[in-house]
């Protein structure tokens, strides 16, 4: 019995030893496996970097100065901007604005003039079709979402014959802030949608500049871009009217709920409520 216990104990020690050895081996294998993975990744990084280098070099070669010049001569015909195309500051830019004359076009109205339409237009677009929650609600740190709720509540409450919160409180400033915010939201949303086009045109210009080999640099150079985009500025100014029209169109879509996506969003929103 005594011998057996001793033997068992030694066997136990041996078993522990074997287990330890096995664990060390497992560790060693895992380390080696990981290491070979690292090596593989390294080899891949090297291959990719070399590939990048080849492509970059090929690009540099195909787009070298002489080639760009040849393209510009044949295709684009860009020339260096003249001094008249550079502006020092915003004041100079503002100097381009014409004073109002008798036969001047009507002043531009901003898109947020019709609040109810804007408010109605805002709601469907702000709801995530996946979660049914307002997109801003995911993170609580987005107070911008709140006016949307209010705005969304307003028509619903009105339609139910109930007084809105602002009506009940009777605080004009609050209501004004609310609608202002809504308007702001709508505007920012529109602004988000619109500048894509502007940005694209700017990018195009910038690319054009680059292609001509005369990319402007420095602070004033940025103004140069601004000047070159003066037509697009004008466009965005007159575009404000277009933006208004756009809002109406959007509002129409919101009301009609023609898009299946929006229908789904509205359904989800109702379910959540």
């Amino acid at each position: 019995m005594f011998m057996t216990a001793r033997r068992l104990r030694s066997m136990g020690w041996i078993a522990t030893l074997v287990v330890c050895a096995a664990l060390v081996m497992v560790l060693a294998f895992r380390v080696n496996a990981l290491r070979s993975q690292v090596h593989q990744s390294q080899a891949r990084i090297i291959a990719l970097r070399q590939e990048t280098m080849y492509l970059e070099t090929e690009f540099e070669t195909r787009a070298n100065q002489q080639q760009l010049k040849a393209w510009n001569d044949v295709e684009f015909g860009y020339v260096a901007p003249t001094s008249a195309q550079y502006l020092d500051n915003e004041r100079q830019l503002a100097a381009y604005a014409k004073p109002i004359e008798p036969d001047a076009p009507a002043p531009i109205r901003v898109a947020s003039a019709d609040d109810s339409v804007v408010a109605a237009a805002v709601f469907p677009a702000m709801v995530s079709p996946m979660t049914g929650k307002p997109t801003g609600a995911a993170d609580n740190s987005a107070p911008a979402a709140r006016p949307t709720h209010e705005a969304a509540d307003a028509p619903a409450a009105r339609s139910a014959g109930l007084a809105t919160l602002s009506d009940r409180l009777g605080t004009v400033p609050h209501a004004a802030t609310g609608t202002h915010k809504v308007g702001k939201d709508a505007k920012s949303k529109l602004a988000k949608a619109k500048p894509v086009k502007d940005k694209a045109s700017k990018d195009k210009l910038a690319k054009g500049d680059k292609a001509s080999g005369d990319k402007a640099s420095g602070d004033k150079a940025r103004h140069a871009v601004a000047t070159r985009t003066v037509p697009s500025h004008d466009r965005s100014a007159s575009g404000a009217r277009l933006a208004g029209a756009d809002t109406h169109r959007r509002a129409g879509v919101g009301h009609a709920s023609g898009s299946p996506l929006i229908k789904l969003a509205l359904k989800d929103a109702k379910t959540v409520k």
Partner: protein
Amino acid sequence: MNATRPQPVLSNAISTASATGRLHFANLRQRSLLTAKLRLVWVVVGFAFFALTAFVRIAQLGLGAQNPAEGAAGDGLAPPRAEITDRNGVPLARAFPAYSLWFDPKALGSKGLPLVKTPEEVARALVQIFPSEDYDDLLARLKAGKGTYLRRRVLPEEANKVFALGEPALEFPREIQRFYPQGTLAAHVLGFVDADGKGKLGMEAYLNARLTDKAHLSEPVALSIDSRAQGAMEDELAHEMLLTHAKGAAGIVLDVDTGEVIALASLPSFDPNRSDLADNDHVKNRATNEVYELGSTFKPFTIASAIEAGVVTDMAVRYPATPLKVDGYTIHDHESYGATLNVPETLIHSSNIVAAEIADKLGGQRLRDTMIALGMNQRANIELPAKGFPIWPRGDWPRLRTMTVGFGHGLAVTPLHLAQGYAALVNGGIWRPATLFKVDPAHASAGRRVFQASTSARIRQLLRLIVVDGTGRSANAPGYRVGGKTGTAEKAGSNGSGYKNKHAVIATFAAAFPMDKPRYVVIAMLDEPQANQSTSGQRTAAWNAAPVVGRVVPRIGPLLGVVPDGRRDVDVSDLTPLVANGEGE
């Protein structure tokens, strides 16, 4: 026998047995203890061994292979020769695994013919693909039956064409070679690398040790060159060269405050990717290696030196402008601009006579000292190995020599000398060595003062006046406040004496911009431009070199941070009333 054997006594037997049994047990116990201890020792040793192994392994992993990324990956990415980039990081020279064309006669087995077609057919096809190759030479190499390079650098398209010939003996091993993505751009600045991997010419030669230093292989060397400005300069010079059928051209853009060379062009150029073709006349660097008498562009130096010495104190003082006879030679002007001229008119009309008179009044010693201070008596300060030594009149300058140097003859320098001199003229009077390395403006060379700031300010006015009212009008890029001086000098004969061919001239325009606070000096030089329709039948710098500057400045100005402004300019109102209208050279 067995019966007689005495039987052991039982008691004895018992006692003996018990004694031996005790002993046995005692021994057994002792032995067991020993065994147990031994086993324990083994276990401890085993544990210690494994613990040690694990510890060593952990230590090895933790310390030895600490950062594998820096080892293998780093080595794999380091090129055999470091990159050269421009000041904005655009690669100008890099290691690139390009194709080469290798002839392996044993590709089809050691027996039989090495080529499918006849060597003549293959050679003819190769010459069609590579027109610069020599048919006979190719044929000889194909017939020799030895493995050899047929061509060191083959473009992928060319490799495809050769592949289409269907000759297994023509192979395309990829070899890491020096590649210049911008082609001929800044070829004279970069130089090239020969077949043995040694840098030749330009910065490849100057930086050979640095570029092959194993510790810095992955760190590119940034030059001061701006590839966009370089491209614009080369482009405009090449355009003018074509228009005027000039033999060559040189152009420099130099930062006046740091001495950085932003562009340095010499035309005709060569393709550093074709090092086999680089060994020709085109490798001569006209901007730093060839020396020329740069003519009237030296007149501002004379005037500045005279203002500095107090010889010229009043811009309104008039000097006689009738042909001047000195030691049997007559100094003429291009045209007659009246009996007398003042200093602004002298520069505007580029009067040799008045410049000579002022130099004469200044004296040889003082003019010489100014020229020495501007570094005109030694090789240009730049890293390039190709630096020409000026033709510098030794000893004391006699009167005639002083007068000719006063209007830019009798002293031949490189365009780079001129650029450095002009930088000192306009930057407030500090001469700085030129450099092809990117310099932090805070650590720019201190340089040495050659002119006082007031002299420099006066020269800036005068140079601006030349472009507004004088010979440099075609360089007047609107809004860039360019100032500069034209210079058209007849080329001296090959032995340095006599001006045999009146039509062989060097036309130079040395300019700086913006003149209210100069940032860059721009030099454009044309070697033997011809008079034709494009230059209204003229071959003077006003008609060929100045327009180059006029076109280059608007292209490079915005890139280099100089914004055109039509409402700013140098105040020249005190000089304008002194100038009568007229033309000159």
